[in-house]
């Protein structure tokens, strides 16, 4: 392992002051997707709305898994809390959707704190199992506590998003609100990433030993980052409830975990753009391949496998390699 100081490396730096091609390309793609959504019919609006909601969910999950380097297989629990919380508060108790969204986020945050405090002492697959159990428990509750959740029947009659007299009546208006909240969520994640707090979280992912030796309270930071992920998941759950107007236990089931993991790894875990790219690609792929009919699922899986094998850091990592990155 001895190497001279003059050895050349695959240096990742680039000409400073160059155009941020990567950002421009991503922004352009984003605009394209949004423009497409707003010019298209109701079905496309729905698909892109789901993609945006998932993107928000994954942005939070990415903070916990990608940046802080922990594993949670139970983030769907917090989406369920958000979804059912918002549904019950708005449909049964007449709360403003915006207020309900914030209240349920706060509630989810407290639950994450209480659940995370003992759980985050576990490591690796123990943590994964514990969080997975959390997701399953929430799912069972949403099925069996029929008085509150209406069980398998699902919960309907959830009003659209809005605040005061302003309601997002049409799906396109709803999509606009979701996209604005998504933009806020992504900006917040980016701000957190490049801060004392975010660097400490990413340090924990790199080496808990070294992070601790530099004075970072590892357990506390993991907990805070778990809570952050829960807040995003809760908001995503609430938005879903309002966007569709109906929720059932299946919506927040284990499939959600699989779906969000695919998005994260495909888009590029540990990057800001990754969750967005992953959410859009995974949501749109099956739609684009509808022409394949019976072979649709196979085509979909082939593409996923291809990306995972040839671009292990996801699409965002691929872009990093192909396009010069702007220096911070």
């Amino acid at each position, binding site marked *: 392992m001895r*190497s001279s100081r003059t050895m050349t*490396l695959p240096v990742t730096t680039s000409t400073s002051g160059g155009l941020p091609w990567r950002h421009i390309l991503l922004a352009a793609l984003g605009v394209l997707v949004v423009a497409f959504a707003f010019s298209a019919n109701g079905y496309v609006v729905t698909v892109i709305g789901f993609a945006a909601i998932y993107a928000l969910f994954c942005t939070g999950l990415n903070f916990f898994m990608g940046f802080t380097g922990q594993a949670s297989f139970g983030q769907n629990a917090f989406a369920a809390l958000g979804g059912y919380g918002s549904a019950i508060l708005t449909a049964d108790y007449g709360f403003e959707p915006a207020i309900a969204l914030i209240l349920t986020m706060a509630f989810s945050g407290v639950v994450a704190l209480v659940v995370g405090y003992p759980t985050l002492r576990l490591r690796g697959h123990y943590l994964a199992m514990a969080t997975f159990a959390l997701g399953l428990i929430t799912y069972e509750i949403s099925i069996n506590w029929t008085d509150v959740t209406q069980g398998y029947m699902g919960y309907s009659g959830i009003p659209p998003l809005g605040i005061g007299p302003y309601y997002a009546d049409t799906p396109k208006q709803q999509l606009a609100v979701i996209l604005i909240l998504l933009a806020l969520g992504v900006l917040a994640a980016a701000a957190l990433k490049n801060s004392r707090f975010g660097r400490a979280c990413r340090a924990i992912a790199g080496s808990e*030993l070294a*992070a601790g*030796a530099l004075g970072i309270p590892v357990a506390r930071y993991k907990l805070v980052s778990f809570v952050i992920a829960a807040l995003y998941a809760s908001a995503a759950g609430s938005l879903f409830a309002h966007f569709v107007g109906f929720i059932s236990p299946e919506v927040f089931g284990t499939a959600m975990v699989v779906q969000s993991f695919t998005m994260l790894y495909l888009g590029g875990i540990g990057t800001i753009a990754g969750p967005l790219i992953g959410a859009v690609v995974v949501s749109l792929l099956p739609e684009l391949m509808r022409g394949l009919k019976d072979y649709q699922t196979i085509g979909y899986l082939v593409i996923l496998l291809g990306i995972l094998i040839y671009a292990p850091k996801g699409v965002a990592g691929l872009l990093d390699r192909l396009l010069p990155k702007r220096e911070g």
Partner: protein
Amino acid sequence: MAMLAIQGITKRFGGLVANDDVTFQVEKGEIFAVIGPNGAGKTTLFNMIAGTFPPSEGKVMFDGAAISGRPVAQIAQAGLVRTYQLVQLFKALTVAENVMVGFHRVTTGGVFSALLRPPAMRRQEREIAAKTAEILDFVGLSHRANVTADLLPYGEQRLLEVARALAASPKLLLLDEPAAGLNTEETAELARVVRKVNENGVTIMLIEHDMGLVMQIAHRIAVLDYGRKIAEGTPDEIRVHPDVIAAYLGGTEGYDD
């Protein structure tokens, strides 16, 4: 007053006594080396000082306060910063970011300051960036600032670990075999850095197998063998100490390994 006082420290792992009633002091401003054959208990001693695990018996006083039994992060917060025998870099972070994390102890701000970016926080970020550049320059890693840490050759990884620890402005810096795996040139560079850091007022305690380096930079040395301290003194005293010579001849390695 001593910067660090080790008082009758013992560590048992089941039947194995890894440290056996070890006592010594590290004075403010000195470079103190701990040497001894493989398995002598040097890293175990560091782990007890830094709080990785508590001693079975005895206590550790750091800068006048008893720290044994306190958690690692709290001890680090108090100004006792360590590096590890096996490099523990934040591999996905750039070289500069690694150093920036080092400033954690001497900076403030959590989630809210990150989101709201008040002027004080932005100023702090600018200061950290400037000081990071200084430190990288100091250890000769400026040209690597924006490279991810896992791409560094091994010698530079070790230097980066030291650089990161320096960012924390330690009062006492513990280095566990900082020269392990370095070539002659890199070791010389490391010696220069350690000396310079010490001249800037940082007390340094290091474990090292490279006797050339130890004899060259240490003011005082303690020798461990089978968990016991068998000698303590200046490099000249240790060089000729009969027990030390015996331990090294009987051990698995040569004097200038």
